[in-house]
């Protein structure tokens, strides 16, 4: 139990740190939302190793803390829905065992974008954001691949096994 709590809080801290570091990386095409999503490597990793509840807990705590500390409560609603969509999708895909961790990460990125588009649509009630969404989707797939590869490297290098957590 202690081991688990320690691991979860450690993963949380790493995810928050990733979000913080990412704030210093400017978006390459100047569009809000086009970003690497470094923190997702932690989430993808936890989906793989931990239960759904634990992975969800980590991402919700991360979103809450980064919103309060850095980005403001407005972005909380966005990230919350995006994260929820993404983690449910990744969990389901992981269960089917069709994809490797790279595929899971890409599915997570796509679901994250769909979640955020849903919020944006409810806020604006206007489909004129379709172009914006298309670019987000494309960038999400690319960053999803990067994060998936990163998570794959992590899995290989980290000396832990799922059954002794």
């Amino acid at each position, binding site marked *: 139990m202690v081991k688990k709590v320690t691991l979860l809080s450690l993963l949380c801290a790493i995810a928050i740190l990733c979000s913080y570091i990412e704030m210093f990386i400017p*978006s390459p095409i*100047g*569009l*809000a*939302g086009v970003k690497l999503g470094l923190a997702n490597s932690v989430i993808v990793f936890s989906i793989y190793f931990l239960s759904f509840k634990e992975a969800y807990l980590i991402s919700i705590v991360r979103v809450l803390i980064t919103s309060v500390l850095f*980005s*403001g409560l*407005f*972005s909380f609603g*966005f990230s919350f829905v995006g994260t929820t969509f993404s983690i449910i999708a990744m969990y389901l895909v992981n269960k089917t065992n*069709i*994809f*490797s961790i*790279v*595929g899971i990460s*890409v*599915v997570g990125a*796509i679901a994250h974008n769909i979640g955020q588009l849903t919020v*944006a649509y409810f*806020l*604006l*009630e*206007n*489909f*004129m*954001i*379709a*172009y*914006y969404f*298309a*670019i987000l*989707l*494309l960038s999400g*797939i690319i960053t999803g*691949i990067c994060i*998936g590869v990163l998570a*794959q490297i992590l899995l290989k290098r980290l000396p832990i096994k799922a059954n002794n957590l």
Partner: protein
Amino acid sequence: MKKSDIYLIVISFSISLLFILWITHSSKPSSMVVIYVEKEEYGRYDLFSDQIIEIEDSNIVVIENGMVYMEEANCTGKDCVHQGTIQYSYQSIVCLPNQINIVIQSKEDTYDSITY
């Protein structure tokens, strides 16, 4: 990486690429800048007459040489300001905290539908 990963990446990548191509290629020559604020149409402006539009307090939209950009915004993130200029149809600048959506449309487009 499995084979299914490659399929997933290739398929999703091409779908989103086609989506972008579809939007950009189906656009007509556009000359209208439409600004929506809180789901309501705020105003329509000619893309080719330079002007400065102020929305509520301190949200400044500039139309200049057939391009549109957000000069100033009162939100915290300022993503809309950093986004820079847009000039083609269906491109948009979105400021979510203020619920402002700036879209370039063709004149024939009606209020709430995209007509291809």
